[in-house]
């Protein structure tokens, strides 16, 4: 269904820099506050925040940098996570629990268990991932606001 701009309650795009683990999570935390203020059901807010946090950390640790866009409609929310590379060679493998190429220093910081992508899929109502080696990865997640 085509959506007009009028229906959009809120939209924002923010950048995540390559390797900026220290700041990773701030965008997701801000989504959480914003959605709570909008009165979104706390369980939906939590699922979205988890998926967003996983995606944001991935941008910092696995990519050359990218962006996160949140679009809030009256009945659903879209989260679009894009990066400029390196891309994922085997998406099916990356989606498996426990598969991770995260370096030791990331594991020392509590991440890199290979749980993030499957967790994003579990937390969202719709999940799409496309990737091309050399050009980057795009993840689109949808969250329903009315059941």
């Amino acid at each position, binding site marked *: 269904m085509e959506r007009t701009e009028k229906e959009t309650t809120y939209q924002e795009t923010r950048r995540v820099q390559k390797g900026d683990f*220290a700041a*990773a*999570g701030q965008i*997701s*935390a801000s989504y*959480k506050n914003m959605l709570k203020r909008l009165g979104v059901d*706390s*369980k939906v807010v*939590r*699922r979205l*925040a*988890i998926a967003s*946090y*996983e995606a944001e950390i991935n941008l910092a640790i696995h990519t050359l940098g990218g962006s996160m866009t949140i679009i809030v409609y009256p009945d659903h929310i879209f989260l679009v996570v894009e990066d400029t590379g390196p891309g994922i060679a085997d998406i099916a493998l990356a989606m498996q629990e426990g598969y991770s190429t995260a370096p030791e220093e990331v*594991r020392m*910081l*509590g*991440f*890199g*268990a*290979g*749980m*993030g992508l499957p*967790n994003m899929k*579990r*937390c969202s109502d719709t999940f799409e991932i496309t990737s091309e080696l050399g050009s980057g990865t795009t993840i689109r997640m949808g969250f329903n606001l009315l059941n």
Partner: protein
Amino acid sequence: MKVSQIAQILRAEVRCGEENLDLDISYAVASDMMSDVLVCNDADRLLITGLCTVHTVLTAQILDLRAVVFVRSKRPTPEMIEVAQQNGIAILCTDMSMYNACGELYKHGMKGRARPDGTD
């Protein structure tokens, strides 16, 4: 189990979030891997961890957790305390090891919850 009881059992110092001492928490999750903690979205959990970073507190915030226990004499930074305070998260610090802290809480009836389907 009330947060105050958790603090007592673990002989823990409450660094912030005294307002949560009367809250009841039903389950616990223990890990140094935040990736593993994030797999379950049940907010009614106590996080027990040896990972003392700002991402530990951020993970608790994302999951709506009300209390975090740092084991083995880890010292949260002022920044971590501030983030915890802003988000209504109690921070408890104990000298106990992860193993003993978990064992003590388990002995007192606290059950684990770590899987997405809500089992332990």
